[in-house]
């Protein structure tokens, strides 16, 4: 787990999101136990109640189950449930913004898919205002 917290949402939501990322990335597999509340609290210097809040959200979302006295475990089907939810979230919330940007910049599908959707060709580097992107500038340095 990343040790840095951002200011955009409560820490317990970020704990939840990090466990979700670990499940999606396959770091936590179905049937695996979640790291203990105490260990996460000590290692990431957060209140144990904060960690528990994050875990409890995952229980509510049926991604993990609480086994009395044993801890919390990733449910079977959690990854596909997450993928389904995350896909819907991307298509519903993020994709419209991305699509609008693509339209605004006049990007073509082949440009987006080139090198796995990475960076544009060197002659085209820069944003719409003609300024070089920071990535491109770093490369030149």
């Amino acid at each position, binding site marked *: 787990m990343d040790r840095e*917290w951002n200011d955009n949402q409560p820490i317990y939501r970020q704990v939840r999101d990090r466990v979700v990322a670990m499940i999606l990335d396959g770091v936590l597999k179905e049937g695996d136990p979640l790291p203990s509340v105490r260990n996460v609290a000590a290692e990431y*210097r957060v*209140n144990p*109640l904060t960690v*528990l809040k994050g875990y409890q*959200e995952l229980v*509510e979302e049926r991604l993990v189950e609480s086994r009395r*006295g044993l*801890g919390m475990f990733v449910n079977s089907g959690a990854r596909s449930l997450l993928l389904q939810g995350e896909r819907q979230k991307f298509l519903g919330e993020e994709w419209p913004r991305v699509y609008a940007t693509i339209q605004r910049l006049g990007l073509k599908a082949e440009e987006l898919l080139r090198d796995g959707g990475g960076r544009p060709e060197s002659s085209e580097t820069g944003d719409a205002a003609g300024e070089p992107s920071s990535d491109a500038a770093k490369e030149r340095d």
Partner: protein
Amino acid sequence: MKMKGFFLPVLLVSLSALAQAQAAAPKPPVPKSDAQKAFEQLKTLAGTWDAKVSVTPPMPDMDTGKPSQVTLRVTSRGNALVHEMSEIDAPADPTKYDHPVTMLYLDSDKLTLIHYCDAGNRPRMTARASEDGKTVEFDFVDISGSTKYGHMHHAVFTLVDANHHMEDWTYMMPGDKPIHAHFDLKRADVVTGTK
């Protein structure tokens, strides 16, 4: 007429002496309200405490590793008590670390608690003390800020002795599902002599 001229100064001197005697006499102490007594009781907790934490729903391994830490500080000339939770060794950097802060103060005849939550809200609770004054229980009154991410809902302070107390905190998750943490606290100042 002569008698009248004699008695008037004597009377005035006597009244003055009486008034001075009354002013000098100790006033009977105003009895403290239950809220004041409870607040005084909680202020005795000022200091640094190491906490063993257990939670509900129950989780294993809660006794392993370093304890959590709670600090209580009397401030504002005795008008407020600051309660702060943190993990041992966590730098006092509120932008990066989890430092839930709670303020306790007297609001007229009510001992009041406001919890400043990183969920972005501020629940207000008021206290009722047990008969023996050893337990002070705070019930939810109202809240300011968003409850999108839930809110702290209930708190209980139980005083065992000068170096031992317990705290029970109940957080209400979205959908009004409670989770609970029990803090068993030993005074760290005594253990480490670092007060």
